[in-house]
């Protein structure tokens, strides 16, 4: 989450602030939080909640919800590893719902395209089916977990690179200094 640059910058800021405050007391804990957040599940780790067939199908769905296009998508963010992790953490109802929903979707796949798996369809076929089930609880849950996984910290199983943050222009840091954006910079420049 925090690259070396922002950690260095935090240290520099802290050294300055420490002269006038008690920030030194909280600094070690803040840094250990940074370290914790930097740890992520190893790429390609085995799944612990989903079986590999389920994982492959759900990953294919996630990749249509947040596709890899001009910017990274669910695949690069490791969303399926996030799902595997959180579905095993007190989300039994959602897991059961996804399993039933996946079987129903696969039945539609078989009926419409005469093939057993969603992942084997091309993207326009996949989008056509997902559009048909857009209002189902299954799709709602898939969308929720995909979007959440795109922006969840790596400790929940996704990619340590947090490509979702880059995609929306969010930079995760522990400090900022004004100006924060265009309009307050302009305000200061004009002396308003």
């Amino acid at each position: 989450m925090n690259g070396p640059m922002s950690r260095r910058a935090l240290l520099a800021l802290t050294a300055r602030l420490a002269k006038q405050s008690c920030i030194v007391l909280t600094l070690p804990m803040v840094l250990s939080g940074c370290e914790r957040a930097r740890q992520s599940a190893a790429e390609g780790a085995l799944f612990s909640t989903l079986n590999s067939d389920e994982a492959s199908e759900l990953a294919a769905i996630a990749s249509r919800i947040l596709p890899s296009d001009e910017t990274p998508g669910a695949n690069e963010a490791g969303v399926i590893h996030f799902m595997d992790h959180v579905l095993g953490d007190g989300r039994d109802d959602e897991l059961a719902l996804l399993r039933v929903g996946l079987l129903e979707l696969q039945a539609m796949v078989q009926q419409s395209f005469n093939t057993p798996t969603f992942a084997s369809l091309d993207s326009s076929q996949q989008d056509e089916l997902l559009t048909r089930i857009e209002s189902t609880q299954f799709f709602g849950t898939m969308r929720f977990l995909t979007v959440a996984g795109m922006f969840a910290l790596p400790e929940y199983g996704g990619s340590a690179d947090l490509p979702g943050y880059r995609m929306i222009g969010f930079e995760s840091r522990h400090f900022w200094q004004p100006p924060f954006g265009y309009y307050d910079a302009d305000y200061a420049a004009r002396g308003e």
Partner: protein
Amino acid sequence: MAEANNSLPHFDTRTDVDFVIIGSGAAGGIMARELSTAGFSVVVLEQGPHLQAGDFRHDEWAYDINSELTWSVRQGHPQTFRKTENEEAQPVERALSYAHNVGGSSVHYSGNFWRLRPIDFMEASVKGTIAGTNFTDWPISYEELEPYYSRVDWEIGVSGLQGPWDPPRSRDYPCPPMPVKGSDVLLERAARQLGLTAYPAPVAILSQPHNGRPACTHCGFCNGYGCEMNAKSSTMIAMIPQALASGNCELRTGCTAARIDTDDSGRVREVVYWDADGTEQAQRAKAVVLCANGAETPRLLLLSANSQFPDGLANSSGMVGKNLMFNAHCSVVGLFEHPVNAYKSVPTTRVVHDYYEIDQTMGFYGGGGIDGRHPSRGMPMGLALRGSLFDGPSWGSEFKRHLSQEFTHTAAFNGHTTSLPLSSNNVSLDPTLKDKWGRPALRCTYMDHPDDIATMKFFHDRCSELMSAAGAIKQTGYYAQNGQNGSVHLLGTCRMGDDPTNSVIDRYHRAHDVPNLYMVDGSSLVTSGRGQPTMTIMALAFRAADNIIQAARRGEI
């Protein structure tokens, strides 16, 4: 987590302590510090853990989805909700929301610290009562509370700038206002065009070092999150350490109050609770100060019903749990040409208070303020889960392109407004659903009064005009035209008043019915104010503590 050392002193549960304080939040933290440093023996019971700055993370999944601070079904605390008493309340994740930790919701709040104004305390007299509501004056005035507002400014820590339109104050703010954000530059410029005034928003977040704590580093994770720098002015950092340092305060975390028991004379005798191991305990006390918030305070009183108090403790008026007020809200979001980056720094830095009181010729009661914010409190996941803000898909490549603009290039103008006190809006015990301790779940019944909805709409329309004046390329707005489904503002449920037939506590926060029981928290409020209640809850706590200390020293508790 970093558990604080709260092992000393150890009071015997079977021997009276001077005070048991139930809840360590905005009010309870102040009561703990004030009573313990005045020399009284104090036991504080807190449901949650004693988190420290180093425990707090920028973790949306933990805080906003898994309710790590606020607790929900996942932690064994389901609730039910309905709009009217004719309906059966349905289980919900959470309708009445607060943080379960030392410092309570003052740890995760956004820290907007508007004071009430003189009019708030006497508005029913000035404007007339409103049929079908319990709208009434407070038994105290702004002037009586003002010294305590100033104590909050200095002892809790508030940053701001007094404007000529603000209520009178006896001391300046201890810290200057926070630097203006782009979202508030847009608000300020729009307000100027429309002949309105945006001025620096007072916040309980330090703009410069104060009382040995550091200044804010603008990380942006305020609302819903604990401050990792101790720059946000929670009672966790501003009060509790001093209470513990007094040597007179024992903080018992992980302890959930079950009921308050009385003796034959109708006085409070002990507080029964489950300790961190789940074992039932009972702490004897000379007096109890209930600071559990506007949801849990009335719930505990109702759970404490006994043969002497069949309708709940301190409830001869029937007002325990009634008059729940959420404050009402609206939000208008605009898309702008350049990066606003409202996700950085504190939630808001400017507020427009020109509509503090809506002109009565509009035909409805109400008022409030408008401030500039980020549309999702600065949270990436929170924004993305909502879908495209301004019409558009909620998945696929087009959705991603929307998100890439909408997180950084948007500002929200939010209205924060009044709620009228109604008997039909209340906290009660659910007849069937239980929580993890086997207690009846919190049941919330709430439907905004038509004037409250008219006020929301009025503010929505003003926010929309401001957004147009600010030059938004696109805009979208929302207010709860069919009523709200929950809130973090839990107000009015043990209201203060001189008349024991229609109020629960007297002007000094003492229960009318029980001489050694005090309620001090959001439940004490008589009217809702305009939307930022914690400053007033804290000022009331300082004032209550002063009066309780004097009464105790006179032997009058």
